[in-house]
């Protein structure tokens, strides 16, 4: 049986709140935690497969052109080498998130420096790596590939364009106006686990152990790449060592392993080097943005403008959605928004944690800080003053909205001083100290999801879905959802994830995993409760289950009487997505110190207050927020991809030169969860969490830098050279 719901109407019944177990929302430790801390949790490259050969990718050293020939004989003569594969089905880019079809193929055609062109298979990793390094490749290069996003005529993304009222006129007549150009550099996901796959054929069926976020899409992408039916493909990703967007779509090593294993007739493992992960997968596009804000004397917005230029390779649909939350965060009836994409031959641009808002929100929040200063209105108050009653572009109601509460409660907890603000008021030795704040916003998404929940005769439960846990806490929240609905402790729920032999989940991406798979599990449990209620002679709505028994009645095992009950939950986003604007909201507060001689910035403390619907697990939800804030620090101060202007290759393609925050960069961080019930977001009233924590945080740090030392830095990351250049004498 399948319990299906396509959500077309708000759900205000909050049925979950009538359950008796009291385990949902609690700070339960991760149920897979001991496997992770003891090193026994298997990641993609670690499945014990017999007779494994090792594959190493070879990548192009030209920008654009074609591979004319490869000296396979020389490579095959090297010790241990089994095959040199440049099959036309090899993929040359990772699929974009939810692509659901093969990405670009044909490795003979080169579109960017670092693109995979072949895979070498050998008995040992050392042999394959050596042969890959020495492989002789002849290219025909097509000169003149555009590499600079500012030097080409961009394409307008017309569905993003808003032209409402007359912004130019509003700017001209405004009491106060801010008009800024802000740039952000590219980012890398840099998940700690490099992309990896082990492929094993059994007849005409292939099993691939991989590190992927969305198996429900990846299975189609892989099948399409191989030219086989989906039922010939099985993907397994029980543990994913971080994704952050980089593992949304099937990546090159997955297809390469499958093709190589078929070619050599034995299982093959392909693991990308860290440099290949940086170059072959996804970058967040750099952005150039223009922000225009026009307000009356009290800071009320009359005009709102946000334009952005991003880049990508030809033939890619993805354009960093910089304006995503700008469409609805603040009011202003005269609006101009425009997104343009420049076609250049740098590596593929795609999703990196919080695509869009991660770079759009900090820029907007710097502009709001400039406006606050011009109007003399406290920055927190300025934001509260500009919260619209409904989506200002589409006249849609908000599903729920906790921005004002997050701003107020965050300010109080942080100890925000709402008095007059002026830079350079506090000095500590050679450091200027200051504070800043920003709003947080991130659109809420949901995806179709299925999960099967089985009640076993002994009264314990098992859940099966191909949903993934990429560190977000899926294993645990699924167990908590089942526990809450069926009256079980989490220890009595076995959660099996990450295997396409199970029903299709939503996959993890766009912060939609928890709300989507949680809803599918919830629906399956409702159907099971119907059956249990019948057995107990009561209505489902009256069925009180707790600690493995009907309250004051039979145990589940007795009720089941030796039988097993199983139901599949199937959740689909419905019309409600078109009739409401749903978003997570929040606020960031930061205290920083800036060295007056070196321009170095250190974050002293940060606080984030967030409203994202029902909290499913207070411990893992808080961790998601901590992670987002940590990323905010990286985006603010250190993270930047640098491309060689001559050939577009990524220069800082490793963790020594691309600077993610380290432990000492992250000071005291406080998280405030402003809990709510969102009736539109999902039938479990939960919204996305994972990305919200970095949607604006870098802006709070920028504004704190200004408050500390008077340097209004408009280029992210705010490295010491940029801070010094912007510092007044």
């Amino acid at each position: 049986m399948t319990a299906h719901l396509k959500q077309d109407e708000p759900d205000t019944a909050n049925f979950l709140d009538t359950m008796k177990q009291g385990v949902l929302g609690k700070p339960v430790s991760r149920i897979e935690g001991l496997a992770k801390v003891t090193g026994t949790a298997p990641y993609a490259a670690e499945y014990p497969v017999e007779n494994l050969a090792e594959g190493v990718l070879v990548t192009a050293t030209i920008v654009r052109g074609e591979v004319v020939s490869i000296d396979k004989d020389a490579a095959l003569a090297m010790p241990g080498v089994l095959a040199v594969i440049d099959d036309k089905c090899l993929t040359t880019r990772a699929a974009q998130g939810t692509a659901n079809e093969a990405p670009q193929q044909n490795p003979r055609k080169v579109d960017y420096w670092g693109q995979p062109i072949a895979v070498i298979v050998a008995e040992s990793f050392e042999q394959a790596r050596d042969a890959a390094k020495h492989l002789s490749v002849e290219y025909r290069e097509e000169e003149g590939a555009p590499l600079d996003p500012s030097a080409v005529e961009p394409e307008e993304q017309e569905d993003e364009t808003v032209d409402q009222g007359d912004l130019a006129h509003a700017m001209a007549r405004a009491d106060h106006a801010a008009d800024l150009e802000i740039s952000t550099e590219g980012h890398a996901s840099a998940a700690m686990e490099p992309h990896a796959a082990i492929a094993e054929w059994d007849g005409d069926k292939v099993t691939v152990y991989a590190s992927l976020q969305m198996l429900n899409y990846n299975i189609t992408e892989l099948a399409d790449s191989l030219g086989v039916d989906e039922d010939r493909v099985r993907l397994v990703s029980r543990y994913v060592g971080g994704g952050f967007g980089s593992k949304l779509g099937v990546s090159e090593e997955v297809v390469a392993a499958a093709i190589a294993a078929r070619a050599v007739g034995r299982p093959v493992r392909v693991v990308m080097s860290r440099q290949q992960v940086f170059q072959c997968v996804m970058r967040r596009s750099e952005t150039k943005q223009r922000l225009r804000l026009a307000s009356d004397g009290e800071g009320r917005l009359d005009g709102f403008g946000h334009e952005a230029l991003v880049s990508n390779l030809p033939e890619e649909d993805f354009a960093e959605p910089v304006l995503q939350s700008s469409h609805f965060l603040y009011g202003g009836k005269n609006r101009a928004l425009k997104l343009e994409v420049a076609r250049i031959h740098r590596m593929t641009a795609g999703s990196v944690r919080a695509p869009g808002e991660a770079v759009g929100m900090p820029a907007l929040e710097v502009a709001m800080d400039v406006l606050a200063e011009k109007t003399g209105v406290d920055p927190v108050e300025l934001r509260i003053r500009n919260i619209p009653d409904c989506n200002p572009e589409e006249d849609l109601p908000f599903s729920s909205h906790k921005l004002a509460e997050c701003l107020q409660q965050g300010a109080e907890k942080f100890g925000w001083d709402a008095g007059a603000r002026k830079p350079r008021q506090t000095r500590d030795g050679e450091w200027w100290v200051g504070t800043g704040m920003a709003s947080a916003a991130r659109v809420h998404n949901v995806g179709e999801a299925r999960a099967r929940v089985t009640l076993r005769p002994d009264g314990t439960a098992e859940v099966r879905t191909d949903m993934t846990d990429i560190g977000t806490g899926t294993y645990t929240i699924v167990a908590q959802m089942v526990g809450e609905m069926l009256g079980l402790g989490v220890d009595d729920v076995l959660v099996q994830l990450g295997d396409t032999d199970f029903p299709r989940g939503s996959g993890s991406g766009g912060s939609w995993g928890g709300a989507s798979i949680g809803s599918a599990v919830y629906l399956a449990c409702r159907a099971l409760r119907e059956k249990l209620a019948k057995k107990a002679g009561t209505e489902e709505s009256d069925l009180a289950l707790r600690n493995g028994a009907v309250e004051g009645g039979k145990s589940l095992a007795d009720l089941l009487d030796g039988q097993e009950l199983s139901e599949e939950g199937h959740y689909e986003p419905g019309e409600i997505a078109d009739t409401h604007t749903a978003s997570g909201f929040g606020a960031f507060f930061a205290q920083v110190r800036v060295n007056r001689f070196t321009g170095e910035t250190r974050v002293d403390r940060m606080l984030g207050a967030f409203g994202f619907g029902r909290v499913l697990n207070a411990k893992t939800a808080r961790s998601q927020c901590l992670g987002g804030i940590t990323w905010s620090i990286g985006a603010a101060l250190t993270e930047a991809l640098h491309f060689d202007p001559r050939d577009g290759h990524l220069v800082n393609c490793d963790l020594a030169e691309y600077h993610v925050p380290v432990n000492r960069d992250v000071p005291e961080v406080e998280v405030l969860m402003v809990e709510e019930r969102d009736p539109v977001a999902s039938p479990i009233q939960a919204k996305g969490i994972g990305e919200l924590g970095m949607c604006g945080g870098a802006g709070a740090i920028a504004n704190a830098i200004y408050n500390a030392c008077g340097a209004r830095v408009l280029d992210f990351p705010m490295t010491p050279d940029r801070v010094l250049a912007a510092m007044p004498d």
Partner: protein
Amino acid sequence: MPDTITINGTDHTLPSDPRVSLLDFLRHDLGLSGTKKGCDHGQCGACTVIVNGMRINSCLTLAALHDGDDVTTIEGLGTPENPSALQAAFVEHDGYQCGYCTPGQICSATAMLDEIKAGFASDASESLDGEMEASADEIRERMSGNLCRCGAYANIVAAIRDVASQGETA
């Protein structure tokens, strides 16, 4: 000359290919995949193991250089049935998310606490000698060679401090 290496109390013969790193020897040859490869260049700390009592990046050293050495990996610190104090504290404090950097964090923290006890100074230390304290600042500095992209640092520090303070009271 000995050609064996002791790993978690068991003797193993070193590999014949001199190019094999200690990390790949553990992961590929011995199936001890608890030690993770994050960068293969000593930049991330995911491959941290304890050799003769000191923490090192196992990707930056060749297996052949470890004749007669005594290596402890994450598998040697504890098991799901019998985790070490730090392993249990990482679970309790949610000192991880995806879990990939975690074995390296825990091996690193295990040896790091011994370094503090032995009086090794760090950049965060107030003085170069005398007793060292496992303060939050000391832990942040000393654990900065172990990257966590999920951003669990605050919880990692909390987990380590918890164990360090237990050690003081024990």
